[in-house]
C-alpha cells in the first residue's frame, strides 16, 4: 500500500481545458492514473484526452471521484476548492502558483473541518510509484520500492527521485508539499503517514530555507519516527531577505536559515546530504 493515493484512486481535474489541465491530464493517463472526469464551466459535454468534461464538480459525482487536481488560475482557486469540498471529495491537490495565502488559510481551515487532505498549492502533487500520479511530476523518473519522499520543491524532487531510481532505489510515495508560505501538508503530517505505511521503510525529506517546518519535523522524528530518515536542505547560499523563487523561500530576521534546519536534523540523528545526488548513498 501507498499513502493518500493508489491504483484505485479516481481523479477529476478542475480546469481540464486549460493549458496545464490539458497537458497534465494526458500525462496522468499515460502514467496509469484513473482520470475519470474534468470540469470547465461552459465546456460540459466535450472531451479532453478522451476524458469527459462537465460544467461543475457536482455533475461528476456519479463517477465517485476520490481526489481532485485544481489547475485553475489563482483568483479562482478558492472557489474551485470550495466546490470540491462541497462535493465531499476527500483529497484536494492545488497545482496553481500565486494563490493569495489568505485564500489558502481559508481553504486549509475548511479542509481540516471536513477531514479533507489538502496538498499544495504550488507543488508538483503526489505519486504512488507506478500506480497513481496526481500532479505534474515527470512520468519516467519513478521505480517501485520502499522509499518515501516528501519535498517543498518540484524539480529538486525530480532530481532526487531520479538519482534514487538510477541507483536502484525505488519509491513508495512521493509528495510535493508546495513552495508557498501556507500549504496543506507539513513534514510532520507526512512523517505520520510514512511511519504507518507498510510499503515505506525509509524516508527522504527535501527542505528549503524559510519557516520552521524542518525544525519541527526534526523534533517529531526524535520521539515518533522509527524508520530511517535522511534529508537535503537547499538555500545555504541564499542572501538574507531575498525570496528565492518560491514565495516561502526567504530568510527573515535570521529565521529559517539552512544552517538552523541542518543543525536540527543532525540533532535528531538525521543525516543531511551536501548535494542532492548524495541522497542514494545516505539512504543505503
Amino acid at each position, binding site marked *: 500500500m501507498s499513502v493518500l493515493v493508489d491504483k484505485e484512486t479516481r481523479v477529476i481535474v478542475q480546469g481540464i481545458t486549460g493549458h496545464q489541465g490539458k497537458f497534465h491530464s494526458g500525462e496522468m493517463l499515460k502514467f496509469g492514473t484513473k482520470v475519470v472526469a474534468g470540469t470547465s464551466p461552459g465546456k460540459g459535454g466535450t472531451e479532453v484526452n478522451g476524458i469527459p468534461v462537465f460544467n461543475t464538480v457536482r455533475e461528476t459525482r456519479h463517477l465517485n471521484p476520490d481526489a481532485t487536481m485544481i489547475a485553475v488560475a489563482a483568483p479562482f482557486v478558492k472557489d474551485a476548492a470550495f466546490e470540491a469540498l462541497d462535493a465531499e471529495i476527500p483529497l484536494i491537490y492545488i497545482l496553481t502558483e500565486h494563490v493569495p495565502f489568505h485564500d489558502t488559510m481559508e481553504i486549509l481551515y475548511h479542509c481540516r473541518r471536513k477531514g479533507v487532505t489538502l496538498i499544495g498549492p504550488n507543488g508538483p502533487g503526489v505519486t504512488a510509484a507506478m500506480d497513481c500520479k496526481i500532479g505534474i511530476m515527470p512520468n519516467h523518473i519513478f521505480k517501485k520500492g520502499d522509499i518515501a519522499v516528501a519535498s517543498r520543491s518540484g524539480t*529538486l524532487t525530480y532530481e532526487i527521485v531520479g538519482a534514487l531510481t538510477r541507483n536502484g532505489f525505488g519509491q513508495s510515495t512521493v509528495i510535493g508539499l508546495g513552495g508557498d508560505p501556507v500549504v496543506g501538508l507539513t513534514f510532520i503530517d507526512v512523517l505520520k503517514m510514512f511511519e504507518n505505511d507498510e510499503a515505506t521503510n525509509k524516508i527522504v525529506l527535501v527542505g528549503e530555507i524559510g519557516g520552521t517546518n524542518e525544525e519541527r519535523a526534526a523534533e517529531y522524528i526524535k520521539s515518533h519516527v522509527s524508520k530511517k530518515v535522511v534529508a537535503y536542505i537547499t538555500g545555504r547560499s541564499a542572501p538574507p531577505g*531575498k525570496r528565492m523563487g518560491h514565495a516561502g523561500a526567504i530568510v527573515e530576521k535570521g529565521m529559517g536559515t539552512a544552517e538552523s534546519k541542518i543543525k536540527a536534523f543532525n540533532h535528531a540523528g538525521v543525516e543531511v546530504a551536501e548535494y542532492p545526488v548524495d541522497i542514494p548513498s545516505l539512504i543505503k
Partner: protein
Amino acid sequence: MNLYEYMGKEIFSSFGIPVPSGYVIHDVADLKPLSGSVVVKSQVLIGGRGKSGGIKFASDEAQLKEAVTGLLGTKIRGYTVSTLLIEEKINIAKEYYVSISLNRTERKPLIMASASGGVEIESVDPKEIYTRIIDPLTGYSDYIGREIVSFLGLQGEVASQFRSLLSKLYKVFKEEDCELAEINPLVLTAEGKVLAADAKVVIDSDSLYRHQKYNVTDPEKTPLELEAQGKGYSFVEMDGLIGVIANGAGLTMATLDALTLHKGNPRNFLDLGGTDSIDIVVNAFELVLKANPKAILVNIFGGVTKCDTVASGITAAKAKFNISRPIVVRLSGVREEEGREILKNNGIQAYSEMMPAIEAVVKAAGGA
C-alpha cells in the same frame, strides 16, 4: 509588498483607525500653511530612519522649509528620499506595540501587543509581549481585545479605544491581504487619545490583482532584478562570477549551493519556471549576460520544460548575443537526447549529471 508609512496610514484611516492628521509632499512647493508644530517624516522602506536623521520637527514656517529642503533628495542608508509625510506633532503620554501577522508554523494569524512600544519588538522581553494565534474561522472577537487591554493594564475609555482599534486592525489584515499590519508605536496622547503614530503594512504580492491601488517598487531590488521581475522571471543578483539558469526554484537554489560548496560563487539566481518556450530561454540569457558573469551554467531537469526546447534556446541565444564566454550545460529528463544532439551540432557539450557540470563551470570561470 512593503507599503510606505503614508500608504499604511491611508489604509488604517479608511478602516476607521485614528492616525495623526497630515499630508504627503514630493516638493517644497506642495507645503501648506503651518497651523501648529509638525513632524516631517521621510518615506523610506527601511528601518532605523529616525536614528539616521530621516525625521525632523518644525514649529515655524522657516524650520519647516529647512526640514523639507534638508530631507528631500537626501539619502537615508542608501535610499533617496522623494516623499515626505508632514504630520501634526502629537503629545505622547505612552507608546505601545500591536501587530497582526501570518504565523507560518501554525499557518494562522498571530496577534501581538506590548506596553513596550517605540522600540524594535525583537528587543523586548517575550514576557512583556502578549501573543495569541487567531482561529481564522472565528477571526478576531472582542474577548481577544479584552485579554489584550487586561495584559496591558488599560481601563475605561482608553481600553475601549484600544479594543475598537484592534478589531479594525484585524479587518485591515484580512481584507487587505496583509502579511503584516503593525503599529509601532501605538500612541496614547496626553489628551487620552489612541493614535497609530506609525504604520508598517506588508501586502501579499500574490493578492495584488485585487488591490491594484498600490504599486511600490521594492527598494531592496537592483535595477536588473526589477527588469527581470518585469519580464516575469524569479531573479536574484549575487556577487559571484558564475551566471546560473535553471528550472524550478528548488533546483536553482540547489545549483547555487553546489557552486558555492565548490568555491565557484554564483552571480545570480534565475528560475526559468515551468514553461516550454525558446524565447523564455533566450531572454533569460539576455538578463544573465547583463550581469556580466565569467561563465554561464544551465542546469535543467526536463519535465514540463523540455530539454530540446532549452537546447534550441541556448543555441539561439549564443547566436543572437554572440556569446563567447563559456557556457556549460546539464540536461536531464524529458527529451534530453534530442537536446544534447542540438547542442552537439552547435559545438556545446551537455552533461547528463549535475556534479560534473558544476565542476566544469567552476573550472571554466577560473575557480578551484
